[in-house]
């Protein structure tokens, strides 16, 4: 996935769909987190909490971001299990 990080927002190029999307700064953070490989929601949240102390607020925003990323086919949710993630 190609990313242009504009700070407050960014652009991503999805190599599977060849579509380009404008995305929020939070989605850019999630993409950055996922570069090391699939992760669970909790693992992603754990990484994001280094950015803010407000866990509830970040968790809500993360769920919105994951939904948006799913709708754009930027991520695929794997079946829930202990060692699998997004």
């Amino acid at each position, binding site marked *: 996935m190609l990313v*242009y990080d504009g700070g*407050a927002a960014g652009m991503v190029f999805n190599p599977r769909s060849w579509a380009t999307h404008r995305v929020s700064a939070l989605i850019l953070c999630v993409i950055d987190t996922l570069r090391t490989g699939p992760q669970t929601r909790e693992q992603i949240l754990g990484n994001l909490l280094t950015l803010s102390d407000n866990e509830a607020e970040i968790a809500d925003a993360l769920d919105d971001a994951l939904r948006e990323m799913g709708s754009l086919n930027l991520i695929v949710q794997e079946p829930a299990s202990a060692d699998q993630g997004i």
Partner: protein
Amino acid sequence: MRIRSNVAALATPLAKLYQHFDWLPASGFFDATVSVRHVPGLRRVLRPQVRLIVDATIPFEPFPAINHLPLLEWGMNFALAERGLHSLLLHAGVVERHGKAVLLPAIPGSGKSTLTAALMCDGYRLLSDEFGVVGLADGRLHPMVRPVALKNESIGVISNRYPAGVMGPTFDKTRKGRVAHLAPSLDSALRKKETARPSLVVFPQFRGGAALRVEPVDPVMAFGKLCVNSFNYEYLGPRSFGAISRLVQMCTHWRVEFGGLDDAIRAMDDLLAAAP
């Protein structure tokens, strides 16, 4: 690009508008051969028409013969847009001064060609009034120097303001209204192979009588507008994305709303002076 025609009336304006260009031998390799030819038969006498042929294809319906030059210029644009797949092609005017290039991406009616023509007549080097050609390897802007196509009121505005400019004939009834072409300046023609470093992206918007308004455009917004503005973004896919990323990083981005050329040119001078 090779031009062929059996329309005698095309020769004089073509020679005038391309007076600073070299004439190449007809043999050899050409990216495309664009022909404007009379439609044969009785129609040639009753209602003369001309047809555009790009190599072996006929992309448009015939035009009234009197509109030979606009048809040829649109045909060349068509051929370049269709075949220029080795570069990112933006719908934009491009000018350069002091080694810094300005990209003017815009939709029709925004004043892009008028402003491009005015900047050229004010000493900027013209790279194109239609195509921003972004090199995929180097990110530089490659010239596509051709006459500037002016429409309707812009023709009088430019010819009155710059009487020394070399203007071709006016074609009154084309499908885009009145059209006339302004020849590239000598400097632009002589440097037609010299690339330029992009420094400034300006989204122009002419609004009659409006006061000058210059606003920064957020880089991500500029990125999105450039994607939409490209002729071949989807074809090149990730290479387009890379080219636009680099372009956005190299430039500052502005929206300039103007009601007159004095204001617009002054704004462009100031923005370019401050650009990296």
